[in-house]
């Protein structure tokens, strides 16, 4: 995903003279091509995220379209006040990109996990909070974000995530898409972890269960038209996210469902439990330990449908 981000940023730098890229001293060599296209618009802001965020807000208030890139905890909770005041309150159209989100850097420990970012940032008025499932969704959302009047936070994965969307998907901020059709149960979620849901749906199909999988693209804004249509088609839902169970996609969908008049839907939330993780391993080990891999999602599907 991050390579797709870097390539798209290079294309965008050539297309738009107002684009700037601010890095928190990461991405060594990753932005070499961007720097060739627009050397005067690349800034290594050092390991000083609070300042970087306010600098981006200042640039945006002067008519530029800054994109900030660093590891997720450092570009979110580390400088939350600068996001709240400089970016969100001013409605300065900054694009904040957090790389290695969720458990991408699981083995680096809780300092590098980001399991609260969506929950916290979706409380800020006027800030889009998106989490693309694959590179295609990332590119579409990045382009939308740079055309939007308001700021966007985007959490992305790391390297090598598979493409999940088919060619016909209508991608962009606030747009949900079905990755797989199904009638018995719907997995709604965000991010590359939806690959686990697709695998789980395949396993469940062998049991005769028809499981749909949808990428919501983010938690704010939610695609309410899509969600409402799905409530009329599927009664059992599971939410899936590589994020804490508190306040993320599952919570956002539940908040909406609770106030919805009409078809009752049962929603089971899957996410990281409300604790810091000390049993460290790589991303797939950690997903597996937490029941967030294909096997864990499959178990949850069976429990929901057999209950």
């Amino acid at each position, binding site marked *: 995903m991050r390579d797709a981000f870097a390539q798209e940023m290079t294309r965008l730098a050539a297309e738009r003279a107002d684009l700037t890229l601010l890095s928190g001293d990461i991405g060594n060599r990753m932005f070499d091509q961007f720097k060739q296209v627009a050397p*005067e618009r690349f800034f290594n802001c050092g390991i*000083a995220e609070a*300042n970087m965020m306010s600098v981006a807000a200042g*640039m945006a208030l002067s008519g530029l379209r800054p994109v900030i890139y660093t590891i997720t905890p450092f570009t979110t909770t580390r400088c939350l006040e600068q996001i709240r005041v*400089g970016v969100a309150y*001013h409605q300065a159209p900054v694009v904040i990109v957090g790389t290695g989100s969720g458990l991408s850097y699981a083995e680096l420990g809780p300092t590098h996990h980001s399991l609260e970012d969506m929950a916290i940032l979706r409380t800020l008025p006027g800030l889009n909070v998106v989490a693309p499932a694959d590179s295609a969704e990332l590119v579409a959302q990045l382009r939308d974000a740079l055309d939007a009047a308001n700021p966007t936070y985007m959490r992305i994965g790391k390297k090598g995530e598979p493409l999940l969307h088919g060619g016909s998907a209508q991608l962009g901020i606030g747009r949900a898409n079905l990755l797989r059709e199904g009638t018995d149960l719907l997995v709604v979620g965000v991010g590359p972890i939806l690959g686990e849901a697709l695998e789980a749906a395949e396993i469940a199909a062998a049991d005769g269960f028809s499981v749909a999988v949808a990428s919501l693209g983010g938690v704010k804004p939610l695609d309410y038209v899509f969600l409402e249509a799905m409530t009329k088609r599927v009664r059992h839902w599971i939410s899936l996210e590589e994020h804490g169970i508190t306040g993320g996609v599952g919570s956002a969908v539940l908040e909406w469902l609770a106030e919805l008049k009409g078809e009752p839907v049962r929603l089971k939330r899957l996410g990281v439990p409300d604790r810091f993780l000390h049993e460290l391993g790589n991303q797939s080990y950690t997903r597996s330990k937490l029941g967030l891999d294909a096997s864990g999602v499959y178990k949850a599907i069976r429990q929901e449908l057999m209950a």
Partner: protein
Amino acid sequence: MIAAPPSPISVAELRATALTLRQRLVTTSASAKIPHLGSCLSCVELLVALYWQELRINPAQPEDPDRDRFLLSKGHGAPILFQVLAERGFFPLERLEDFGKAGSVFHEHPPKPGYIPGIEAATGSLGHGLPMALGMALAARIQQRPTRCYALLSDGECNEGSIWEAALLAASQKVHTLTAVIDFNKWQATGRSQEVMALDPLAAKWEAFGWHAQEIDGHEFEAIEAALAAARAETERPSVIVAHTVKGKGVSFMEDDNNWHYRTPNPEELAAALAELEPV
């Protein structure tokens, strides 16, 4: 289009303007119960010099993209900035009759742009204004605009780490179009700024961070003008003007008395203050 350069103005006129602004400030503080009087009184000359001598701004076109930017990084100085903007013609003075009233935009801190002409950023939280001004200066460089950017800081604000993060980046980026002015009134909310966070030697700290640093008497118009001119002449480094000031300046019983960080004058104190703020 280039914003209008400031017209020449005499020191006597600047002093008269400063006096008028102090009168309105203490009157409003008393009637609307607006605090931070001491912090506002210490930076009157700095603001008057900036707005009447230095900034290339045109109150008739407050969003001219080529204008200079001024950010009140010490956002609690908003009560005096609002007086400055009204007097400078950004909006009618009558708008300040709403100061402190429920539903008004004129309260203790600057709101985001769009509500009060001339306000460039919301800065009630300290440590935000200088980094945002740095972003605006970098934007002007990319956009090849003549814009210079100014931020007025308090000494207490220099406790914030983000100020020093901005200082480091501005120096590495050689943003010589950025000028920080520090209203060094030696107090912060609850104590002497030197005792709370060991600021001294303040100018030397900025110098060590790669800035062109000057120290002046922040109540002397000639000194302020000379320092701003020297900052403009600098072609490599960002500039800082460490302006030695007196908190509560201009009202004898408020000067260097930190109780006036939060207190507002009662009717007797207002009368006494205004008696001292008569033209000589």
